């Protein structure tokens, strides 16, 4: 799988109200990679994600998967939203099964894969619970299981832990890293949290606002074997500080 984003531009509105949100954004994601887009709010990172998902159309530029252009949403690109997007009237298991049912898979297959993916995200016990009976972190894990069960070629994560408490956030980061290592999935993460991006991703693209563009791309070559250890290791902190400074320098109000 090769996801190619090529000189993507996006503007909203017409005439005087026209606002340029993205200018010439290009990058690629290959099978098995974990790529992150980091930027402050207004840097257009969520717009990049919505364009890749096919929920919006670019003003210029192209998105393709293995050479096929992306024009509409499809189950080859699974998406996890920041806010809990579980269907509140379905149980955890029914939510996981939802996408597979839309795909028209056979009932035994849906049942088997639902059980498997609930197991993968460690929530086999919660199968019969309604979303409101689950914690925020559990809900996001179900949303990830639902996206994975539909067999996407790339998983799009739009600030998936943005609405969670800091402790749950950290355990979810470890969960996602672990999931990535176990399943070999391909992931594109959107976050405003530099630390989260560096902990999880192999490649980090830093985006700056007005108009949204990529100003720096870093390949993270750190020892990811223990996340708790990594968080406090010297090379990690040094890289984080350097990039944080770069990010700050991009904000006109903060750069004095």
């Amino acid at each position: 799988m090769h996801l190619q984003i090529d000189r993507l531009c996006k503007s909203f509105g017409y005439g005087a109200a026209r606002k340029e949100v993205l200018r010439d954004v290009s990058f690629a994601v290959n099978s098995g990679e974990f790529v992150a887009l980091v930027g402050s709010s207004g840097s257009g990172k969520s717009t990049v994600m919505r364009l890749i998902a096919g929920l919006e159309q670019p003003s210029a530029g192209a998105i393709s998967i293995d050479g096929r252009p992306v024009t509409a949403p499809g189950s080859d690109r699974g998406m996890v939203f920041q806010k809990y997007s579980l269907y509140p009237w379905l149980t955890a298991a029914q939510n996981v099964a939802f996408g597979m049912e839309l795909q028209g898979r056979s009932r035994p297959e849906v049942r088997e894969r639902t059980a498997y993916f609930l197991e993968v995200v460690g929530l086999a016990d919660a199968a019969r619970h309604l979303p409101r009976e689950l914690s925020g972190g559990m809900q996001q894990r179900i949303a990830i299981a639902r996206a994975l069960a539909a067999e996407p070629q790339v998983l799009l994560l739009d600030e998936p832990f943005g609405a969670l408490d800091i402790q749950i956030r950290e355990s979810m980061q470890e969960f996602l890293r672990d999931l990535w290592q176990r399943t070999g999935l391909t992931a594109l993460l959107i976050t405003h949290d530099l630390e989260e991006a560096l902990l999880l991703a192999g490649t980090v693209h830093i985006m700056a606002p007005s108009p949204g563009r990529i100003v720096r791309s870093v390949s993270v070559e750190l020892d990811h074997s223990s996340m708790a250890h990594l968080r406090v290791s010297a090379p990690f902190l040094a890289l984080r500080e350097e990039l944080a400074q770069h990010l700050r320098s991009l904000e006109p109000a903060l750069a004095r």
Partner: protein
Amino acid sequence: MHMPLEDTLGLNLLAANQHQAEHNREHFDAWRLLCLNVMSSPGAGKTSLLERSLAALAADLQMAVLEGDMTTQLDAERLEAVGVPVVPITTGRACHLDAAMVSGGLKLLKQRLDPASLDLLWVENVGNLVCPAEFEVGEHRKVALLSVTEGDDKPLKYPVMFREAHCVLITKTDLLPYLPVGIAMGTSPVICRLLEPLMGLIRYMPAPAFIPLLIIYFGLDELPKVLLIFIGTFFFNTLMIMDAVKFVPRELVETARTLGGRTLPILTRVVAPFIAPEVLDTYRINMASAWNLVIVAELVAATEGLGKRISLAQRFLRTDEIFMGLIVIGLIGLLIDLGFRALMRRACSWAN
């Protein structure tokens, strides 16, 4: 795109058929009758259309039917019941009637009656949107049927049929109101802007003010009461449902789209369950006004019913009967309300 048959087969099948068709038409013209070729996909309502048309026209016109069917004579038997001569033509493995088969059918018809006495000859083709469009049978006019349940893409997918037809009948339109207007308004800004001003206007007209009109047009039976309740609740319900649809969280719809969901599954599996509690609640609240309207209608114009009893009791100053009537009305209303609450608890427990 579409390739004419002779191009692909190297045969002049269609030309041979055309020749026979012209021959048939000369006969029709000599007999001074009109021939209609009725075509559609299976189950679109050709035979039902014929049943109704034959019954409606039987008094004025002399008619006969050539009934094409692959193997059975079931449709022919249905039409024979109307009392019009029917000649079944079983096509065997062919998926359409051709001019030669119709010519054969005409020979059989001639054994039963003199074609010159006919005004109208119906040819009911085999249920199929493809081949019948290509094979003329000598008809003067082609009629195509399209039922609403087939989907609006059929004229695009079978262009020849709908281009050749002189008349396209849309059938099964009685199913349309079941596609709730409110959902259509909530999902489509265009439909919303078209209908909202009208709906808003009618909603402010007091339903009881329609009673005189309804009595003039529909008398004192059940129908005017049903229509009164419709007028009194439909517009309010529709606007409430439209609002409920507008508040379906964007994430829920977009998640379904990224999972590969298309419009119809999103409407039935995301929008409909999400708005169900609000719809039930709207119905529950509106049930009170519907119940009011029944009693009002009975007070003004009825031959029986609780409202009629109250107005009779008034005439004889029987206040005890009036109180009894009020209590019964209240209790029935309460029961309806409790029923709706129980339904909501069962069907929408997730929303409580």
